[in-house]
């Protein structure tokens, strides 16, 4: 692979000098990626602050700190902010930064739309968060917005408009990613030579285009039911509230995979690097991601087992859901097989990746338990569900994002982060996150409902342990913030172009930090230097 430095020094095309021109008017994929990552980190701490309120209230039985309505606002906002503000934009940020570098493209295919899709996001979230300060308060009916409960507050119109804006942003981002991957690859970068991260994002982008408009349709109908006297979901007018649940979860289940497929891609980049082996079963990994994406469209009603579905539907959705374990198992097997016999080292990105494989699998197993329709009647709406999806989304999605940040920070900033503090962050996070979420399995199995500010004294001990873990995990993320700031602004240790010994792929052929413009002239692709080895063999 030709060293890209030969065509990376374009001083006459450097970054704009003014702050406004550089960041607000940016059409550069790296700058927009940075904006997405800063935005998502900010939202991560805002959503985390809401979680701290929840755990503080649940520290002891009885109403302690906040009123029940405010508690419900916190659970609703925590979910909306973390899903749409933290996890999704951070993956889009990683896609913006890395996809053009990985496929040898000079930028995203539609740079101006890229700018627009980012700058919609801050306005959407200012709108959403502003509802907390409005008369009547913010949305408090849960992030699922089931009618008629969600229609009781006046802030629903603001929430729906914010969701529309987030959806438009996500769809534009997805369109840009698809257009970039399908059209902007360097000559010779065939589809089955692309890194798994790029594949995972291509499939995720198709999922986004397929389901975000469905969410937009669902919330539009909520809006017309509330303000224009339609009766889509109003039983008194001949509508059906369960119809909303079907439409919402037709979006909502693929949404779960939108938040985990890019994580699979990240882990599939990091494990080969630190095991110093090409990934085991490259094609199987790609087909497994595609299979999971396909299956995600036919499992939505497993969120609704307790609503009263026909027996045939319960059985269909139960077995369809359990099928997802097959391609997911293929992926876990291949990650373990990649490590097997490898010359492994345990830098911070690898530690987070190994924790991902183990802890995400725990979340997967509890998901299988929830997939069993008869058992789900017992687990439904309990803390077991809360434990399950936090294992998937925190130790899964969020851990993969942290792994990615440590892995690519040297390429982004040109500096090495502090490995010592990175490891302190990892061990503090991995212990505290289990103290936080593992006891919630026991609470759920014992019958503690989710979304309540007060509970039976029988649940006191596990709740106190969970809250201690929550405060500890929250504090641990301040270490992450410190490591990132130190690395970007103060670190004296310069990163090599190929920052990790075992790293392969186009992104490691450009200098560190990556120049403002890369691959103005498409690079020459040599199969033996591909991210996952020569896949022809």
């Amino acid at each position, binding site marked *: 692979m030709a060293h890209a430095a030969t065509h990376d020094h374009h001083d006459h095309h450097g970054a704009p000098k003014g702050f406004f021109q550089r960041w607000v008017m940016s059409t550069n994929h790296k700058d927009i990626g940075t904006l997405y990552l800063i935005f998502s980190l900010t939202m991560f701490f805002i959503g985390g602050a809401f979680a701290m309120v929840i755990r503080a209230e649940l520290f002891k039985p009885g109403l302690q700190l906040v009123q029940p309505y405010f508690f419900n606002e916190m659970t609703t906002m925590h979910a909306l902010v973390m899903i749409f503000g933290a996890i999704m934009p951070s993956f889009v940020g990683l896609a913006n930064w890395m996809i053009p570098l990985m496929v040898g493209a000079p930028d995203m295919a539609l740079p101006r739309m890229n700018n627009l899709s980012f700058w919609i996001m801050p306005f959407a979230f200012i709108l959403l968060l502003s509802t907390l300060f409005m008369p009547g308060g913010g949305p408090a009916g849960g992030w699922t917005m089931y009618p008629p409960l969600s229609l009781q507050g006046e802030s629903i119109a603001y929430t729906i408009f914010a969701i529309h804006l987030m959806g438009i942003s996500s769809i534009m981002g997805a*369109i*840009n990613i698809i257009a970039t991957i399908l059209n902007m690859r360097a000559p010779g970068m065939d589809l089955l030579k692309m890194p798994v991260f790029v594949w995972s994002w291509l499939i995720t982008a198709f999922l986004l285009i397929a389901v975000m*408009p469905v969410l937009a349709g669902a919330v539009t109908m909520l809006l017309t039911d509330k303000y224009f006297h339609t009766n889509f979901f109003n039983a008194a007018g001949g509508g059906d509230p369960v119809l909303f649940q079907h439409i919402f979860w037709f979006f909502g289940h693929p949404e779960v995979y939108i938040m985990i497929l890019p994580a699979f891609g990240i882990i599939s980049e990091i494990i080969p690097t630190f095991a110093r082996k090409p990934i085991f079963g490259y094609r199987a990994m790609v087909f497994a991601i595609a299979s999971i994406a396909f299956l995600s469209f036919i499992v939505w009603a497993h969120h609704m087992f307790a609503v009263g579905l026909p027996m045939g539907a319960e059985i269909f959705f139960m077995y369809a859901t359990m099928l997802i374990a097959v391609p997911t198992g293929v992926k876990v097997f291949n990650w373990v097989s990649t490590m097997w016999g490898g010359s492994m080292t345990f830098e911070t990105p690898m530690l987070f990746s190994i924790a991902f494989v183990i802890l995400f699998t725990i979340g997967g197993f509890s998901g299988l338990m929830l997939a069993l329709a008869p058992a789900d009647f017992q687990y439904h709406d309990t803390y077991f569900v809360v434990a399950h999806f936090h294992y998937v989304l925190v130790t899964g999605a969020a851990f993969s994002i942290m792994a990615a940040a440590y892995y690519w920070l040297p390429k982004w900033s040109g500096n090495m982060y502090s490995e010592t503090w990175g490891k302190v962050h990892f061990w503090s996070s991995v212990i505290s996150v289990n103290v936080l979420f593992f006891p919630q399995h026991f609470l759920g199995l014992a019958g503690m409902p989710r979304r309540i500010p007060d509970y039976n004294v029988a649940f006191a001990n596990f709740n106190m342990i969970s809250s201690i873990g929550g405060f500890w995990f929250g504090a641990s993320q301040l270490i992450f913030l410190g490591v990132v700031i130190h690395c970007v602004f103060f670190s004296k240790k310069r990163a090599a172009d190929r920052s990790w010994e075992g790293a392969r792929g186009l992104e490691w052929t450009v200098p560190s930090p990556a120049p403002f413009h890369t691959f103005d002239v498409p690079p020459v692709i040599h199969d033996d230097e591909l991210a996952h080895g020569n896949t022809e063999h």
Partner: protein
Amino acid sequence: MHAVTDAGTEARRRRARRTALIAGVVAVAIFVLSILQALNA
């Protein structure tokens, strides 16, 4: 936006705009269909 002079890259950008247009039309169609199917429910 950085001016790209490479002819191959420009051709790829043109194809990308067409791909984006198709994807955008699909997204709008799904939005409309999601409401139409609820009207028929």
